[in-house]
């Protein structure tokens, strides 16, 4: 609760007799003013400024410093950052401690890069920077810190980008390190932010792989949906959904692109990988995902896979666009149905937005040519109105059922759903 809210609202609570003045003061004392915390930040800001000035002095004279001194500065700051981190952690200052350890890791990468630059040394494979990712993953196991777990994921993506762009190779070792190392760390200690960043990092590397190997971009969805399937197997539902967010967004954007541009065979032609290989791989990932959903009791989220229907094998042109639109509508409907079942307001909003997007795409792509515009708006409006009417009715009947069962003394038929609880499968 914010202190400001408490300060403005609590006098009214006292006058209304909700709490006494003494209780109000105890409540206020419980939430110290933000100003006190801000003062605590001043030494940190001061040391950052001092550090920055030292950094700029060194950076400005870097090329003029003798080589041993440069090497000494790099190694000295590396060791100092780690030693400082351990010192603060032992004194119980976790935030500064973890910050310094993270700085040490960044300095290690800078040390590798600047030292090769110092000797004008060219490497032809990834081994130089691979050590950076290895150390990052190892550190994330040594400390209980969110930022230290995020760091190797970001470093892995950056090193992979360098590899593919500058060296023209894709390092499977780096993907494996991030997917297995950081992935296992997440698996043991699930966390939604970490899950999203992990999924984004892996998708970025998958995209680099597709770009480098000149493959059809549809191959991107095999690794992407593997990440999705991993989310299905995780026991923590919220963390699993967070991992599935980025792959789902990518799949949705792809389906949307197909609906918008799929009419021209030229575009669809770029998407068709060899049928058997692609469908076999996708089918295997699908089976993995379904098995996970079944084990965790989350079969209700199965319609997510609608977005991956390989409609691009259809001949380009109108059939493809229409098929994709139908898929988008069914998907939006499934999200709405699921949101209604679980009673989550955010899911409901999402479903409505998806529904409106599908309608807009349909409007621009198809209806323009076939229907009178006014008729189209009429149909769209009626669809939305009937949908809202249906949802209201379902809500009302559920509420009535809940009241009736409460009155008869039994437990409500539909207990309030917590995000962590497994959902009941679709009836």
């Amino acid at each position: 609760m914010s202190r400001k809210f408490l300060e403005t609202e609590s006098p009214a609570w006292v006058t209304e007799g909700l709490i006494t003045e003494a209780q109000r003061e105890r409540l206020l004392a419980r939430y110290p003013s933000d100003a006190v915390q801000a003062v605590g930040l001043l030494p940190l800001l001061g040391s950052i400024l001092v550090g920055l000035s030292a950094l700029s002095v060194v950076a400005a004279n870097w090329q003029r410093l003798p080589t041993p001194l440069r090497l000494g500065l790099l190694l000295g700051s590396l060791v100092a950052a780690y030693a400082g981190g351990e010192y603060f952690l032992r004194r119980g200052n976790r935030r500064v401690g973890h910050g310094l350890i993270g700085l040490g890791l960044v300095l290690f990468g800078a040390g590798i890069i600047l030292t090769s630059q110092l000797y004008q040394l060219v490497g032809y494979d990834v081994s130089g920077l691979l050590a950076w990712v290895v150390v990052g993953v190892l550190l994330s196991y040594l400390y209980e810190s969110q930022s230290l777990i995020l760091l190797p994921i970001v470093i892995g993506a950056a090193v992979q980008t360098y590899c593919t762009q500058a060296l023209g190779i894709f390092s499977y070792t780096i993907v494996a390190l991030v997917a297995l190392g950081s992935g296992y760390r997440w698996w043991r200690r699930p966390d939604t932010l970490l899950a999203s960043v992990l999924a984004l990092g892996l998708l970025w590397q998958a995209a680099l792989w597709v770009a480098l190997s000149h493959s059809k971009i549809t191959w991107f969805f095999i690794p992407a949906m593997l990440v999705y399937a991993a989310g299905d197997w995780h026991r923590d539902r919220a963390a699993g959904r967070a991992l599935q967010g980025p792959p789902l967004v990518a799949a949705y954007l792809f389906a949307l692109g197909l609906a918008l541009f799929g009419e021209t065979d030229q575009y669809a032609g770029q998407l068709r990988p060899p049928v058997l290989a692609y469908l076999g791989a996708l089918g295997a990932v699908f089976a993995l995902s379904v098995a996970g959903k079944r084990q965790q009791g989350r079969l209700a989220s199965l319609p997510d896979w609608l977005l991956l229907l390989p409609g691009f094998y259809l001949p380009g042109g109108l059939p493809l666009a229409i098929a994709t639109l139908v898929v988008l509508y069914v998907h939006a409907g499934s999200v709405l149905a699921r949101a209604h079942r679980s009673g989550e307001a955010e899911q409901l909003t999402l479903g409505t937005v998806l529904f409106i997007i599908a309608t807009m795409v349909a409007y621009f792509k198809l209806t323009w040519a076939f229907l009178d515009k006014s008729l189209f708006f009429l149909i769209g409006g009626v669809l939305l109105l009937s949908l809202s009417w249906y949802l209201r009715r379902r809500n009302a009947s559920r509420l009535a059922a809940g009241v009736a069962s409460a009155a008869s003394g039994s437990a409500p038929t539909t207990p309030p759903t917590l995000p962590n609880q497994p959902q009941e499968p679709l009836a």
Partner: protein
Amino acid sequence: MPTRHTPSHRLLLRLLVAAQVLYVLGVAGAGYATTAYGQHIWLATAPVELHSLQYESFVRLRYTAAEAPLTTWRGASPPQRRQAVYVLLNTGPDSLATVAGVYDQTLNPNPGQAVLRGWVTEVYNHSLGLRYNLERYYVPGDSPLRLGKTSPAVRVRVSIAPWGQARIERVELLQNPTAAR
């Protein structure tokens, strides 16, 4: 799991930090060893643009060996952009190296030849654009390039280690009447 300040945890961190220090020292050692045990060649460049030295610590070198006729391509399939290649260079005694062939796999050079690894940047109708990752030269504080006002052509001494790494050893002004002007 993590963050217990047990002696073993501290020992693990110390080992990890020591490994990082040794690794950076290893990179420096590879730099020395490349010069000590490597093969040395001279590469010529086009005139170097020195204006960038005012706000950056490096200059871009454009090697004459960065462009090779398509007839020097020795690969099985046509060259592709971003492809990694092995460039066979003819080196005379203390003279500038010239491209003898561009290969898509490793090869053993004869005496008087050297192999420098690189990448295809562009495939033109009659030539290949090549990149060696040696294009960025971080100019030391005492380099003659820091004193120059014009755009001199230079020759670059490159060491190629037996294990394949390469480094710029030093850069000299080309003693050439057109460049001295």
